[in-house]
């Protein structure tokens, strides 16, 4: 099995704060892997390092064998990143936004057209794509951004809290998009969430993160059985000593 993400002993320090403290995990190619944990656990920092936005203070991260520090430019060619609570450009229409983003990846106008059409299908915004993004609801914006992150068919898609702040229906829609796209196009997905119940339905494998460290890792079912818990939330509470 090809390894998509390989993080080894990653430490990230901001001033006096140790955001990541020896983070080690790996994600197989084609898998949907969830980093889960409470606010402040270090999920976003980990995803930003994987996405070449931040440099680790120590340790290494490799994406399909390429180092995120030394080969950042190459890594950026095969990944897409969706930041938490990101928005599109307010005064561009949904379609203009997709075209703008596709231009950096597409090789030629045919591929660009294919990407934008595909993104239109993924987000399901149809005629609303002609409207300015500032007129969209939060759910519509998130669907647009998820579509943007997937339309390029990256080898690795890094999604930070993809359903954050969405209602049940929009969350369901976004989850279905991710699942379908990963399966159809073999896209590896590394996502974060503090909603552990949601992750159970989406990820083949999860790592529970607390205070910058992975406290437990495995398949959701395996973890629930191991800790005799009905859900991952309870598993986490037991692991960190709340239950």
């Amino acid at each position, binding site marked *: 099995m090809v390894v998509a993400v390989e993080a080894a002993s990653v430490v990230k320090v*901001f001033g006096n*704060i140790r955001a990541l403290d020896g983070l080690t995990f790996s994600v197989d190619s084609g898998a949907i892997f969830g980093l889960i944990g409470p606010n402040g656990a270090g999920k976003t920092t980990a995803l930003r390092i994987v996405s070449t*936005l931040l440099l680790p203070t120590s340790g290494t991260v490799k994406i399909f064998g390429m180092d995120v520090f030394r080969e950042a430019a190459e890594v950026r*060619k095969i990944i897409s*990143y969706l930041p938490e609570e990101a928005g599109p*450009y307010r005064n561009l229409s949904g379609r203009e936004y997709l075209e703008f*983003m596709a231009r950096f990846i597409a090789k030629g106008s045919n591929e660009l057209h294919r990407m934008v059409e595909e993104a239109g299908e993924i987000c399901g915004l149809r005629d609303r794509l002609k409207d300015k993004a500032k007129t969209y609801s939060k759910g519509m914006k998130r669907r647009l951004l998820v579509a943007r992150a997937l339309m390029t068919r990256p080898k690795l898609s890094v999604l930070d809290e993809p359903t954050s702040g969405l209602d049940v229906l929009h969350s369901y829609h976004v989850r279905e998009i991710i699942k379908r796209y990963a399966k159809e196009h073999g896209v590896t997905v590394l996502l974060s969430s503090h909603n552990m119940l949601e992750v159970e339905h989406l990820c083949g494998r999860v790592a529970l993160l607390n205070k910058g460290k992975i406290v437990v890792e495995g398949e959701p079912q395996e973890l629930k059985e191991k800790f005799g818990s009905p859900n991952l939330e309870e598993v986490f509470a037991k692991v960190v000593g709340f239950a």
Partner: protein
Amino acid sequence: MLKGFGPLLLKELKELMRDPKILLGFIIVPLLMFPVLGYVMNFSMETAKESAAKAAVLVVNRDSGANSTEFIAYLNSSIKVFTVNVSTVDDAVSTLSSYNATGIVEIPAGFSNNVTARIPVDVKFYTVFSGAGLLEGIGSSMVDALVEQFNRNVAPNVLVPQKSVIVKGRIVEGVDPRILSSLVLSQSIALPITLIILLTYSMQIAATSVAMEKEEKTLETLLTLPIDRFAILMGKLSGSTIIAGVGAVAYMFGFNYYMGSFTSTIPTGTSIDLISLGLVPSLFGYLLLGVSLFVTLLSALALAVILSAFAQDVRSAQSLVSYVYPLLFVPSLALMYIDINVLPFWLKVVFYAIPFSQPIIASKAVTMGDYLTAGLGIVYVAAFTLVIMYVASRLFATEKILTVKLRFRGLRRREKVPTE
């Protein structure tokens, strides 16, 4: 009283006053800026008056009587006087610099006879015009004061001053330097005002643009794309420059029309054609001025981009940019009225060092045909801009663009970097 107004007002004041960026940018900066401006203006006026009092004039005496000798002695009691023997006033003009003189007084033949007979006599006063500024009028005012005093001592209206100016070494008869100065000032006032508006708006546009990208996290997305990060910076700068450029043209048109409505109120008496006087920049001069404006605009935008990189949201970015405004307002407002050459050396150095003052210095320089000053200013601002852009590109090339944050130690508790 509106129900709930009191607590809402109190909350609003606490919220705003406890934000150190607002406190500094909107309250402390203006409190310091205007006294500094006032000091600069006052100090400059005093310095200029002193130097005007020390100024020398050349006297061309065509009269051989006692009254002219008495008049020269009278002048000498207030200003330094050198009597020169030349056949024409034009010859005296060429010797002005060797005497470090700024004016010529020509006493006509028959002066003493006329004064004795209490017959009005024309005395010609030629003043060197060196640029627009309120202080240009000081020399003219001194002439008025001297003539008035002399007439009071001798006889009312016996001495009639005929004022002319010397522009770029050429005598322009019948033009009062004070009126010429007012006219040139009214024309040149458009540039500092336009510059202030243009640069403040442009900096706000650039800062808001970067801060919006950070706030909406579109910058994070861009930074993970396979594109040159310098291209992101240049795209931002170029976009802001184009919008600012369009704005500049709009302001120039609007303001010129506005200023045009004032020129009719200037008490010219005689029609003064600035073009024929050579007091309008040449095509090359305009080109230099345009380049100076452009590089200054670019430097301001680059500075705004760097400053906004330290902000986490739009409001913070706008506050941070406002800290730069004193560097724009003080030289612009001061140089609007004062020629930089009359300033004391240390203040001159400070004004030359501020990149935003360069277009104003350049505009006066090119009007007087001094292309070297304008050119050196352009080189300086271009170098400053390159340094700023290099710093900005380094900022964009590293994770600092996402993590760097300005801290106000002592004003508030140190903020933690979000780490999730």
